[in-house]
């Protein structure tokens, strides 16, 4: 008995799996009754998107996604949730998000985006070349004065400013 050749189906299957995982997680983040669950939904969505990045051959961006988003931003958000969590006045605040109108607006928006995508010709390549490692080209692009050196340095300034600003804003005021 000869098994059918499944090779052409592997990539689409992985894609659909990852896409479904990401989208379902995102929807969970939107609808979960508890905010902590929403944060976990967000984490799952981050992982799903990171997987999609790897499928797109963007290994560096995928790794940065995992490190920065999951390791940094998400932790920050969870800290935020913990520090602003249960107090008298927030108890019972976030039972279930009222979803009717947001869901309608979001659905309409999604529909509109689909229509826009449908009607636009992006002149995309149907079959892209095999993915190459991207870390070296990205590094060169960032440090090349002809390319992105200035924005790169500016963004480091931005991060510094954000760091100082956040520390300043969040410091405890003793009155």
């Amino acid at each position, binding site marked *: 008995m000869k098994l059918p050749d499944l090779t052409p189906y592997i990539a689409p299957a992985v894609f659909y799996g990852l896409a479904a995982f990401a989208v379902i997680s995102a929807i969970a983040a939107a609808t979960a009754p508890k905010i902590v669950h929403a944060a976990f939904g967000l984490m799952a969505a981050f992982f799903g998107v990171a997987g999609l990045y790897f499928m797109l051959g963007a290994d560096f961006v995928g790794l940065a996604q995992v490190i920065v988003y999951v390791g940094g931003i998400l932790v920050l958000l969870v800290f935020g949730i913990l520090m602003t969590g249960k107090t008298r006045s927030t108890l019972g605040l976030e039972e279930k998000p009222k979803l009717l109108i947001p869901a309608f607006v979001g659905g309409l928006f999604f529909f509109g985006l689909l229509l826009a995508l449908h009607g636009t010709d992006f002149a995309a390549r149907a079959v892209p070349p095999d993915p190459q490692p991207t870390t070296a080209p990205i590094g060169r692009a960032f440090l090349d004065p002809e390319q992105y050196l200035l924005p790169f340095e500016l963004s480091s300034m931005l991060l510094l400013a954000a760091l100082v*600003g956040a520390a300043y804003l969040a410091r405890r005021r003793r009155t």
Partner: protein
Amino acid sequence: MTIGLMHYLVVGAALFSAGLVTVLARRNAVAILIGIELMLNAANLNLVAFDRYGPGGVRGQVFALFVLVIAAAEAAVALAILLNVFDARDRIDVDAMTNLKG
């Protein structure tokens, strides 16, 4: 059965809409941040997808990384602000933040 640009863009649109719903539906300011992060991720996915199916080079990925930086800075500052709000009012319900209404 090949996966094209359009597939990724649809996923991006779905993630973006989910983020929008989160922002609109939640009253907790941290949850709204979660929604914003989802939307930024959707945009990033589009950038990387365009890069992959576009004329080549790493331009799209570089932009995705810049977006990442902005997202990190934004989350840090926004959370600092929220902590301040929480200190002052003991809650971070955006519906209660109506001091500036006309």
